[in-house]
């Protein structure tokens, strides 16, 4: 499997480290449920998913990878700043 790094182009997945769900947002307030969800709760979606991968053995950019958890197909990848909210 290869992942396209916005800086380095398509690179082998072994250069990347999986860093979890890209859609979680650090709470801006002291809401208990928001913090609980942010720190502890992770969805395990079937199908299209936004994931964070760090190009640790490359340029060290963090990349949002949109990937199908069922078929492993990768749709697109971009920098976290370019992520649009669903």
């Amino acid at each position: 499997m290869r992942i396209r790094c916005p800086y380095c182009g398509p690179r082998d997945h072994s250069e990347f480290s999986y860093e979890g769900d890209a859609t979680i947002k650090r709470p801006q307030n002291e809401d208990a449920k928001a913090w609980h969800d942010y720190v502890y709760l992770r969805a395990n979606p079937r199908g299209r998913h936004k994931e964070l991968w760090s190009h640790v053995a490359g340029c060290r950019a963090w990349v949002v990878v949109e990937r199908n958890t069922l078929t492993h197909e990768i749709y697109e990848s971009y920098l976290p700043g370019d992520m649009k909210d669903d």
Partner: protein
Amino acid sequence: MTEPTTVNGAVRNEKASGVNTQKRIKFTFDGRQYTGFEGDTLASALLANDVKLLARSFKYHRPRGVITAGSEEPNAIVELGEGACVEPNTRATMIRLSDGLVANSQNRWPSLKFDISSINNLFSRFLVAGFYYKTFMWPAKAWMFYEKIIRKAAGLGTATRKFDPDRHDKLNQFCEVLVVGAGPAGLSSALALAAQGKNVIIADEQPAPGGMARYQSHDKTRQWIEEKLSQLNALENVRILLSTTVFGAYDGGCYGALEHAKQENDYSPRLRYHRIYAEEAVFATGALERPIVFGNNDLPGVMLAYALRAYVNYYGVIPGKNIVIFTNNNSVYDLAADLLDLGCRVTVIDSRADSEPAGKIRDSGGLVYNNAVVADAKGWQQIEKVSVYQKGLRFDQDCDILAMSGGWTPTVHLQSHLGSRPIFNDELLTINLTELKTETTITVGSAAGIWDHGDCIRSGEMAAEGETAQSLQSNSNATEALYYVSQSRNKSLVDYQNDVALPDIWLAEREGYRSVEHVKRYTTLGMATDQGKTANLNALAILAQARGCSMQQVGTTTFRPPYTPVAMGAYAGRSVGLHFSPVRRTAIHHWHERNGAVMLDVGQWKRPQYYPLNESERLRDAYVREMTHVRSKVGMVDVTTLGKISIQGTDAGEFVNRVYLNRFDTLKIGKVRYGVMLREDGFVFDDGTTTRIAENEYMMTTTTANAASVLLFLERLNQVVWPELKVHVFSVTDQWAGIALAGPNSRKVLEQVVDDADVSNDALPFMGFLETTICGVQARIFRISFSGEVAYEINVPADYGESLWAYLLEKGSNFELKPYGTESMGALRIEKGHVVGAELDGRTTVQDIGFGKMLENCKKPIFIGQYYSRRRLFNDPERMQLVGLVSTDKTMSFKNGSQILAEPEITDTPVDSLGYVTSMTYSPERDENIALAFISGGLSRWEDKIVYAHFPLFKLTVEAKVVSPHFIDPQGERLRG
């Protein structure tokens, strides 16, 4: 008619195209020397030497010979090589003969011809499916005992425990189209694709292209293969990988391929693991011939018809003169004609009422029986005759070889790896893919259920145009649905390698195992190293018949990678021994080595543990001597391995402030501050110091162990969580060499080396920072201390690390400067009560380590851990908190990991533990054995009380007094001096 010629005692067909009879090769099998020819496999060479018994079977130790001429071989499994090079469970049909090759049979004792365990065969009616599970289920403990004996008796070869002396390599390959299989369909497809200008890789597991077509006797076919090969060789956009098995298809167009690269007298690695990235793939993987299940169908001398054709026409080996061919289809009649041509006696037993090519064979002097089956093979250790059943009558027919063909099964493993599910096709009477084409792959030739040579070529060419050849699919061999012979009287094997016989499947079905996946696991069918390549379809047919349902209803099992076994060495490649993991050496490493330091692995780093005075000085004496010297004079230690992270940008101050629990926005330029970093769940993550180098530049140090994870965490905060902050973080660990000077004389040494800087206590006080030069080289001096002594950490560009070390030693000699290692460094920090990784194990809070004030004082709106560090339970006085322990008996030292109890004896288990010991040392300054520990209730409850540190594994109990964790200089006067 061509007369067989005799070469070196072995009869060879002189028209053989696969061997070079000019080049003889000597090899040894089971201690006896034989001769073969260049191009031979071990199997063909042994057959040429009339060796038909090659192995004993897995469970019943039945005699076994060669069944196939390819990678699906279930029987002729041998141990290749000797000593450290030994490779168990190799298929004799895939071993290229090389000079001096040594192979041995396996799973037999004392010898292949006389094998004691073959007595299992007599008791085989007790050794049915699930026998082991049923017999040894109870009592549970007995299974542990029986398992060892069973594993020894029923088994495969033994792997060596020696280091593999061979080299293996890994490489990445990229292409537009990968063509798997270089038979007629693969070759034509590759050529057509190459003509379109495509960048093509064509791979085949055999050392020569041509696939099954190589085994034909027609000159025209052989010429066609030669011609296509030379055309491909001439093209620059085609790479041909022979002896290379594409064993797995993975996500994103990635394919795993294993090349048996080593040739004789060549310095190539033995195995090459290719990771091939292909935009598209053409699967021209061919088909496998099926055996027929009848009595003693595993007797040496029984083989697949295609295999006999390969041995006769390609390897030139004629293993018999009187040959019976048992078939349910037309594909064997060319073989019958070839054999008659060579002067053999040929008898065809054809299960079908009528066979169109029979007339030609009869005209050439062969016998053909229709409506007939071979019920049983007979003979002692090799075939002597067959019992034929025809229309209610039985008769014996002498023979020395029995060739069989139960039809052909397309090889669709790679497609299956990618998620395609083959199903049984009633018209083709074999399994078939529902879709020959997917978005990135297309299946051609016999793998697509196409049998005619010309049709296979056509389907390959069509694939290059993106067209599937569904229309060319047919049952052109007129195969009949015969899978097993019901008139057999002897053991009929379905899965040769795992010794699964016909009644095992019936038994599984009777006991309620209806799903094919369950039958597979219960009988172990298809679970040997050959993964049942020759067995699976027959088993499905037998199960369907037993269940009284169709083959589609039974379904198929799932194929998983690898297609054929892959040695671990190929996956490891060059990453063995020292190259298993990168070794990180500091810039001062070679000085440590030259000066006799005992080096210790700390993650990937090598660090000096201690510097023994002489050969007899042991660790304990050395570290006590080194730390005593630091406390009385001065010492220096290599601290290059500490993580160093540069944080720069206009928002650097805000960023650092958010990362740590304590304040950093108030830190002045040229000052250092100790910081504690939390995780979002409120527990302590790491600690270290951060220095403000300039207005917008900070330098953070981390523990050696957490350097990588802290960096990754900061990058997440920087790039994902707070991208609006204008800041950059990057590791500078490798850019700077670090040396810590510690001890009462440290300032005097420092004064000697700096070019012209004031390093007095006023100019460079505790937690001060100075950017200066030493011998004109940039030097950063941090006044920090983890030992409790006056100490400095000097950073210079890494290239100057060793010269600074030597310069310090030279200039410090007047003040008795000596190096010390990580062991004494650790002991010094324990005496001081400074926590490190052993204490910060992810379960401790700031309150637990005595920094609760830091949290109370924290008024920052945003920092990591801001929400969960304020959990009520973190203030629970029952939590385990950091304390010091002093052994009441000076001769008793602590053991890390000891559990702390209030009682000296454990009278009853389970027992509630009060806490545990994290770090221990001998303290020369106090002349006592001391330790850091976590204990429920902490110092406020336990100070000056007696507890017991138990280490039940060694039956060790140490009586201890609970004290403050700051064993020396609790007010910190010494380090500020």
